[in-house]
């Protein structure tokens, strides 16, 4: 049901015009305020992510407290913590299972770059396997920094065209990462 309507809408507004930009903005704002996260919390940063959910920081204010442990429902993949080479395929699978539109936030040094763990078992940054939208530095980042990252993601979501997933750049990006996509519309 959702599919038909969404696609139909897209078809209907498939010309550049006033309507499109208006709808883009509205939906962008809606998405930005309802980013349901999939917390891929592996280690220390996961605890700081919990702290940012906890009362003192409360990312629920951004409409983000509904966690989606199922990738199908998530909009934002929050990678908090070390990603080892052993875990990399799992992370990639989780990313591929997420439905468009999706964003990725790498929280903390380990996820973003490997941090101090320049070792044989640690992936030197998750951007080796999946595209990352926002990096949050720190080890572990304070909740303030995580919130800062979230606001950056919101900014991305707000200004992203509805049709990002049909754009050539996006396909090119996914191709770079060897991620399969059937986004030409089956």
């Amino acid at each position, binding site marked *: 049901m959702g599919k038909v309507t969404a696609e139909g809408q897209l078809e209907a507004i498939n010309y550049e015009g006033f309507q499109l930009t208006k709808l883009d903005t509205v939906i962008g704002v809606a998405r930005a305020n309802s980013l349901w996260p999939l917390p891929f919390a592996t280690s220390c940063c996961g605890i700081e992510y919990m702290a940012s959910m906890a009362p003192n920081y409360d990312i629920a204010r951004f409409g983000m407290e509904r966690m989606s442990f199922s990738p199908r429902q998530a909009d934002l993949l929050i990678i908090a913590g070390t990603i080892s080479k*052993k875990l990399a395929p799992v992370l990639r699978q989780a990313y591929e299972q997420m439905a468009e539109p999706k964003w990725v936030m790498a929280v903390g040094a380990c996820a973003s770059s*490997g941090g101090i763990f*320049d*070792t*044989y*078992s640690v992936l*030197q940054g998750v951007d*080796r396997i999946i595209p990352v939208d926002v990096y949050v530095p720190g080890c572990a980042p304070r909740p303030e920094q995580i919130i800062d990252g979230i606001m950056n993601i919101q900014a991305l979501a707000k200004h992203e065209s509805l049709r990002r997933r049909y754009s050539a750049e996006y396909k090119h990006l996914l191709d770079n990462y060897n991620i399969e996509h059937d986004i030409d519309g089956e």
Partner: protein
Amino acid sequence: MESKLTNEQVLEALRAQFANAIGEEEQTIDNYLTVYVDPKSVHEMVKWLFIHDGFRVRFLTNITGVHYPDNEKGKELMVVYHLHSLENNFRIRLKAFLPIDKPEIDSIEDIYSAANWIERETYDFFGIVFKNHPNLKRILNEDSMDYFPMRKEYRVEDGTRQDKDDRFFGR
């Protein structure tokens, strides 16, 4: 809490039981009874300590390997066992040298269930083979790894780091 046993007491009993298998005692900074033993009798010794009524050494603290690449041949690898008698608050450390070509030692998994993963980890890191272990395969690293990373000749880095700039120090 004071220990109810002294190092000498236990060492004496061990020597009486395993005359040939017990090597020299080592004085360590932490003052734990540290003896070098014959790898073949480690299993027997651990078992004897376990069932001995006076000592009751029934807690396995740790097993670990150490790699000494510069040692004489046949003694490149070392396995260290830390055992603990909770009742007597007494700790004992057993050390056994193994040759790097054929590092084999009996598993003590049948005495301590805890040894299962610790031995797997030691195998994973050093390639020390624990005979009679029910499931001796890599635990922390990927199964496809083809070397034993904790041996001294391997680097910790895998060289995939790209953002390091050695302009100044040449680390």
